[in-house]
């Protein structure tokens, strides 16, 4: 009968052998990791290629007119994306004008003003906004915001300017303004979460220094906290903008799907993403190519905005260390 002692005894040469083995036979593992990374890289290359490749015939046929052309007509063309680009930028701008002040105020309130007891609950409520699928926001916009816009908000805004620009036109509810408002709700959680994180790492010495010099709390917020967190806040805004630029379904449901250069904020419109969503299903031939060209534009815009956001948030994180 063997004793358990001899079972567990390992000689020194065994250990040496094992160390040698572990150094050499780690190869499959490293290859697996590298292989997967490489595979995913290849998928991304294919992804970019699929869009480039499909867009190419349209780009070759229409060239730069695709970006500067003022008329978009599915079917036989012309395929001018200028109205779509303008509408995309305009809806995103409206979303930012609403969501940035509200988001920054919420971040400050969450960090400094809300009672400690309800802070984490309030935080998760804002995060809950991010978990709601975008199609639900679209549905909400159609059923709740359109009636409110037509009966209350749009007549009120038109009253301010006397029915002149930018609040001219019939108060039909759907359109650029509604899309901007729905987008503002959708990007709010992003802006709150990230600006909260960057504001929370502002050194407390700075805040206390400001207070001890006799500044009031609002002065400390606007002159100490926000300026010293500004890089990260710009990063948060850029991430929010990236989301708004590419949001598809909710916008498609509320913007009116009318590719035109808007003459007021009440106009209906169509963004790059919403046009792909609403027209891809029936598209054939040259329209498919033109829609892929829109996808390419959207990819270039959102990728650069996201890359910018990445640079800003990284710089903010490094500055905080």
């Amino acid at each position, binding site marked *: 009968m063997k004793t358990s002692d001899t079972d567990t005894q390992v000689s020194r040469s065994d250990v040496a052998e094992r160390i040698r083995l572990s150094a050499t036979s780690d190869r499959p593992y490293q290859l697996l990791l590298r292989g997967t990374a490489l595979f995913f890289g290849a998928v991304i290359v294919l992804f970019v290629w699929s869009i480039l490749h499909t867009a190419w015939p349209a780009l070759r046929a229409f060239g730069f007119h695709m970006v500067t052309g003022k008329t978009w007509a599915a079917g036989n063309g012309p395929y001018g994306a200028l109205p779509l680009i303008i509408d995309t930028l305009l809806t995103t701008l409206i979303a930012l004008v609403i969501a940035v002040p509200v988001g920054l105020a919420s971040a400050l309130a969450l960090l400094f003003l809300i009672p400690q007891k309800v802070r984490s609950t309030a935080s998760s409520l804002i995060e809950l906004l991010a978990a709601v*699928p*975008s199609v639900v926001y679209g549905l909400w916009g159609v059923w709740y915001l359109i009636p409110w816009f037509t009966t209350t908000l749009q007549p009120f805004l038109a009253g301010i300017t006397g029915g002149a620009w930018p609040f001219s036109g019939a108060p039909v509810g759907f359109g650029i303004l509604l899309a901007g408002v729905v987008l503002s709700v959708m990007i709010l959680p992003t802006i709150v979460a990230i600006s909260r994180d960057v504001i929370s790492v502002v050194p407390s010495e700075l805040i206390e220094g400001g207070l001890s010099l*006799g500044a009031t709390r609002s002065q400390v917020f606007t002159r100490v906290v926000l300026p010293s967190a500004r890089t990260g806040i710009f990063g948060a805004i850029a991430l929010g903008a990236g989301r708004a630029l590419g949001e598809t379904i909710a916008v498609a449901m509320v913007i009116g799907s009318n590719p035109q250069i808007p003459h007021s904020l009440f106009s209906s419109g169509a963004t790059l993403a919403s046009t792909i969503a609403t027209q891809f299903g029936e598209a054939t031939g040259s329209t498919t190519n033109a829609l892929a060209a829109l996808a390419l534009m959207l990819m270039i815009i959102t990728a650069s905005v996201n890359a910018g956001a990445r640079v800003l948030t990284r710089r903010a994180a490094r500055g905080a260390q």
Partner: protein
Amino acid sequence: MSKTTLELPPDPILERREEIQKRAAQTLGRRTLVSKAFLVMLVLMFLVALLPLGSVIFALLQKGISSISWPFLHTLPSQPSLIDQNAIGGIGNAIEGTLIIAGLAALIAVPMALLIGLYLSESSSRVGDFLRAIVEIMTGLPSILLGVFAYEYVVVPMKGYSGLAGVVALAVLMVPVIAKASELAFRGVPTTLREAGLALGARNSRVSRGVIIPAALPGVITGVLLSLARAMGETAPLLLVIGTSISWAWNPLHGMSALSLLTYDYSGSQYPSQRAAAWGVALTLVVLVMILSLSSRLISARMRKERR
């Protein structure tokens, strides 16, 4: 004895300080008032930020619950006609489609994303940095672009819409999100644990399997469940590639139905009965998504507690 008097020269700094103190004292009342008003405004704006959430939840409950019933959840849809406009049937196959498409996408995405997360957490090379940048930019790209991708590489070669194309789009969408979350979780594991494992003679692969992944599990699970919740709610890529189905579609090589897409379709329907039912579909979808996001919180909170 002579008396000398020392006369201090006027101190500009002192004078300036007194000036500042005087000004500060004079404006104190006004500044406090402004500050109070400002703080109240901040809290009000925060409450405004919660308003849409309240409104969406209210809408879902008010309009959704009335259209949900047991038959609605497990029967097939039917096409309303001019004779019977209320014959909308159920959404059973849409629930099934959503679960199959998202489940298969997770099956493909999770192992791949974990390996990429491991690779990113271990590598400090240029290649790793580049891949990390790509992964981060991918997480912010509009999902509809992946619809175009799946259309080109799955729908066109297979000559037809299919659930599989949706699976491909969602999987590519999920990988960067999970990879990012798991890289963070893997990096959070103390280096001493890894070194202890290596010092015992274990290989890197064994250390990853036996030490790193278990230690990082709460973070990884959170990432997986959150990305799964996000994938279930995605509509745009599915709109381009999965087509539709009005029967139980167990074969992902054919067209399928999904809750998110059905919500979109119903909301634009010509029949008021279907437009109202869109809220029932949306509520079902939101409940599924919320179960996932809440359980991710519970699981990670519980696992973190157990560790202590």
